[in-house]
């Protein structure tokens, strides 16, 4: 029990043997009005993403901005170094040679954008976090191998739970596990 926990939240997890069954169950749960859905799958299943009701990611915009900032900064560094701070006359060549500054500017753009994309990915997913409540479920390690899980959060009443169990079983769930977790 963490001292930061405010309330206990419970969810139900259903395990499936195939991605097809997971997709079917997910659709049925979505139709039945369950809002807090999450899947755990061994590989990316883009077609199930809409059912999770996620917002459009902000990260691509952040990456674009970072790229722009990186490019401007790299150009500025070159201009500052070679045209302003220590203008070097090499055979009368221009002191502010725009084409010569392009290659490093391009590299600076790509580098900054890639760093923000990479670190943005893990920051936005709140990783690294080596422990998660779902890891406590026996056999959950097969979620990265050959098992497909759906988590239904925000199950308020016994009726909700019973309906969820019914839908999941109908779709071919192998088992259904309740999970109580601290809400962070």
């Amino acid at each position, binding site marked *: 029990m963490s001292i930061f926990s405010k309330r206990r939240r419970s969810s139900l997890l259903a395990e499936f043997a195939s991605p097809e069954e997971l997709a079917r169950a997910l659709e049925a749960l979505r139709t039945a009005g369950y809002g807090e859905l999450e*899947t755990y*799958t*061994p590989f990316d299943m883009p077609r199930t993403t809409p059912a999770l009701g996620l917002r459009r990611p902000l990260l691509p915009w952040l990456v674009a901005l970072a790229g722009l900032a990186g490019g401007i900064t790299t150009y500025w560094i070159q201009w500052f170094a070679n045209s302003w701070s220590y203008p070097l006359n090499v055979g009368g060549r221009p002191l502010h040679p725009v084409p*010569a500054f392009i290659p490093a500017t391009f*590299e600076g753009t790509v580098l900054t954008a*890639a760093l923000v994309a990479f670190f943005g990915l893990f920051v936005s997913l709140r990783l690294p976090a*080596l422990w998660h409540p779902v890891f406590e479920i026996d056999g959950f390690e097969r979620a990265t191998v050959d098992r497909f899980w759906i988590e239904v959060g925000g199950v308020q009443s016994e009726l909700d739970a019973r309906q969820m169990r019914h839908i999941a079983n109908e779709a071919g769930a192998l088992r259904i596990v309740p999970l109580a977790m601290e809400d962070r």
Partner: protein
Amino acid sequence: MAEPARAMGAHDHTVLEPYPVSRDARDDAALTDHLLSPIWTRSRAWWILFTVAGLLTLLFVFSATWTIAKGIGTWGNNIPVAWAFAITDFVWWIGIGHAGTFISAFLILLAQRWRASVNRLAEAMTLFALVNAGLFPLLHLGRPWFFYWLIPYPSTTRVWPNFRSALPWDVAAVATYFTVSLLFWYTGLVPDLATARDRAPGRIRRMIYGIFALGWRGAGRQWRQYRVVYIILAGLATPLVISVHSVVSLDFSIAQLPGWHSTIFPPYFVAGAIYSGLAMVLMLMLPVRRIFHLEDVITEQHLDRIAKLILATGLMLAYSYMCEAFIAWYSGDHFERYTYLFARPRGPYAWLYWVMTAANIVTPQLFWFARLRTNVVVLFLASVVIWAGMWMERFVIIVTSLNRDFLPSSWHLYAPSWVDWGLLVGSLGVFLLLFLAFLRWVPFVPVSEVKRLHFELRREEGPLSAGHEPPEERAVTRPRRVEEER
């Protein structure tokens, strides 16, 4: 009406794609264990190879130490041949790296399915080739401990790198290329590290893979964000494939030396880079495929496609060779004409020039023949020839241009010293050492990507299409089925 149309479609399909992208019939659990088994099993052969690689690495360390202690006067370089082996090795290694990014980044943007099972291996090759590539210019600095002078930082001397020179561009390009490749590679690796964590025998390995997997749990929202970032990184890495070797080529083409001063250099270098890298991908992939029994996930389709790419880039290279010689003749410039029409084909390094031309232009022509594109022996031997031929190309470009420039009285022949050879051969050891470590500890076939590919293939053969077509016809239209029935 529908009947001939379908027959046409079936015909086209098998002609264009005679081989399946995967033939593996294992279920997901068995497939996972099969692909991960190399990292759990020990073998004596691995240790023997690792020892050989370690000894060669020691040769590299020794030669590098010798260079640093005594200075680059221990190399064969001297005026006028101020650049020789080290820059040849640098350009060669960095060129090899390009194929990995080409396969992992370019092909994902082009939605090429066959990249799924080979991209990690190719991208690892990129990283290790770049490590080697970076070491050569560093040693060439003469005083490598001042390498940070290449980075623009505010110092008390108020002196800055000169960005009108192509060499600081190189620093930016190579550093960016390595960093982005590493990030892209690691991003792709995270889900598989999680799989390795969850299949690891024993607590220690579970913990180590667990730490590197960063707590990945395959949640839907994780996959969504991951997909977005992976495509972004691919999009960022793709222009790097074009830009890095272009920048490297500018080191030469900006100089006014005949043989270097040419506008064709950037595309010529990029084509040559991907060409040599694809050859090295095959050199690594063919033994790995055989040793770890991966013929079902790295199929003839992969070999066929890579061979076709080698042929395509080889033709681009042939065109560049011809274009260079033609422009030299057409320009009417005495020095250009001398370099291209006399010094290279008839000069002191003529034998290298002709071996290079034969290796790089004639060898890929084998791949016009469909049967040779899937013949592992031919593929391997051709790759070795191309791989070595591309080293010679860089040597010819660099040394034959330098050793006979404008003033005949300053002409001088170049011969490498033992330190030059030690560094070149040693760098192969460094590469092999890193690559063997990679094979031993990292899931080198992307497990989750292959499983996703299988899922997609299954879905395409799924109940929807089965309802409309009788089974015999499905066997005709689906190349995968054809393969199974053979």
